[in-house]
């Protein structure tokens, strides 16, 4: 769940705070906690009951067309998302004077080595250790100059939106929603539950684990929004500020150490997400094509399993190094692919969780269906609106 705060997410939260300050998005992020939990808990239950990954379930239960659709979309979206992770890693490491070439190659080598040479439990522990650095944003909150905690508390009552509801606001809502529920998260969590060997006896522990992860995800997200709100909000051209400018503002108002710690958090966010996303690509390919699929498999025995994830890392790590690569356009494409794919991924998840033939007594309870369908409905409406704003940018002013 911590990998949910990936590099793209950190940049999204920072831009959210810089554009909208302390207001609507603070309570909005709190609502993201149950949203993330409800969605991810379903994948835990599905994986624990069926001992099969998401890609395999879609392929076998709903046929080759939907299986191939889900797989192709996932792999394409994963590669594009990995590019944003490598953007975060290279940008963050540049703060420490490390050139992008070195940081990109090192990141690819580290991530590939972790996957190839460690068994699942060691891989998981290393990943959790890296993920712990995500919490680095939280203590930084207490060094924000002139932070009015009263204003933070009032935001839960007022839900204030500076500038009102317009196309920028809708875009930022969707960006935050999109970074909370991403397609790769569904596939990753279910596959990792299977690879870890969780069974129906572990569902309760899995639910607690998911809740803890969701909780910290939201705490960190709010911390990043507050940091940006306290240092950048009110700047002219705030909507157009990039992460480098935000880092400079943090340095100017909170000091160089705070900026470096923020940059370190950005690197960590990119790294942990790249670990999870590359693993999800490998698992999904293995599930779809019936290959042996586990991080416990030795590299030579499971080369088919490891290869897709490593190739995706190489592609992403290489693209960020291309001079004048249209990274902004690529980031937009990530959003667009996620827009198309997420409702479909959620729909399959709900179909499977309501399938008594495969879930038995562990099917969704009515409250889970109501809340999940509400999330899907909101997602589809907002994604539809987002699609319209991409095509017609001034439709809402």
């Amino acid at each position, binding site marked *: 769940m911590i990998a949910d705060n990936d590099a793209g997410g950190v940049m999204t939260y920072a831009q959210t705070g810089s554009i909208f300050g302390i207001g609507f998005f603070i309570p909005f992020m709190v609502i993201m906690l149950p949203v993330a939990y409800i969605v991810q808990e379903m994948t835990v239950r599905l994986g624990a*009951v*069926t*001992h*099969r990954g998401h890609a*395999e*379930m879609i392929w*076998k*239960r*709903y*046929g080759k067309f939907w299986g191939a659709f889900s797989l192709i979309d996932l792999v394409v979206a994963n590669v594009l998302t990995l590019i944003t992770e490598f953007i975060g890693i290279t940008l963050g490491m540049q703060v420490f004077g490390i050139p992008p070439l070195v940081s990109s190659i090192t990141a690819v080598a580290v991530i590939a080595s972790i996957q190839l*040479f*460690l*068994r699942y439990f*060691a891989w998981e522990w290393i990943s959790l250790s890296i993920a712990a650095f995500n919490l680095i944003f939280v203590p930084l909150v207490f060094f924000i100059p002139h932070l009015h905690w009263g204003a933070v508390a009032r935001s839960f009552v007022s839900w204030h939106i500076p500038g009102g509801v317009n196309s920028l606001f809708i875009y930022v809502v969707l960006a935050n929603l999109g970074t909370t529920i991403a397609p790769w998260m569904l596939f990753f969590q279910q596959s990792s539950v299977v690879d870890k*060997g969780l*069974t*129906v*006896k572990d569902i309760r522990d899995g639910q607690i684990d998911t809740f803890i992860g969701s909780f910290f995800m939201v705490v960190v997200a709010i911390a990043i929004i507050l940091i940006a709100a306290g240092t950048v909000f009110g700047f002219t051209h705030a909507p157009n500020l990039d992460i480098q400018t935000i880092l400079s503002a943090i340095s100017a108002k909170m000091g160089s150490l705070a900026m470096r710690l923020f940059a370190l958090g950005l690197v960590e966010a990119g790294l942990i997400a790249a670990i999870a996303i590359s693993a999800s690509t490998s698992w999904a390919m293995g599930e779809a094509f019936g290959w*042996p699929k*586990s991080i*416990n*498999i*030795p*590299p030579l*025995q499971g080369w088919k399993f490891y290869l897709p994830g490593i190739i995706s890392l190489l592609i992403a790590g290489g693209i960020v190094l291309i001079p004048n690569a249209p990274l902004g*356009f690529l980031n937009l494409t990530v959003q*667009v692919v996620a*827009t*198309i794919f997420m*409702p*479909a991924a959620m*729909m399959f998840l709900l*179909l499977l969780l309501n*399938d008594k*033939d*495969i879930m038995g007594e562990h099917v969704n309870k009515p409250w889970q269906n109501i809340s999940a369908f509400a999330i899907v409905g909101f997602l*589809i409406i907002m*994604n*539809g609106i987002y*699609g*319209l704003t*991409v*095509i017609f940018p001034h439709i809402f002013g």
Partner: protein
Amino acid sequence: MKIEDKVSKKVNLDEDWEDFIKEEGLVDYNKIPVERAVVKGWVQIAFWFLRIYILAMIILVIIGFSRIH
């Protein structure tokens, strides 16, 4: 972390899983093949909605990308 163990030793995960499931006294769902779902009723409606939704989104995307200069 037993790095040499993972690199050099061949593993049979299916056998390990079967042994584990037997010990836990659980049903081995891997032995029950997943059959193709019968798509009818609300499931069929959901699939048709999905097809329409995806088609609409693809059309919007094509229009949008064609406007990017």
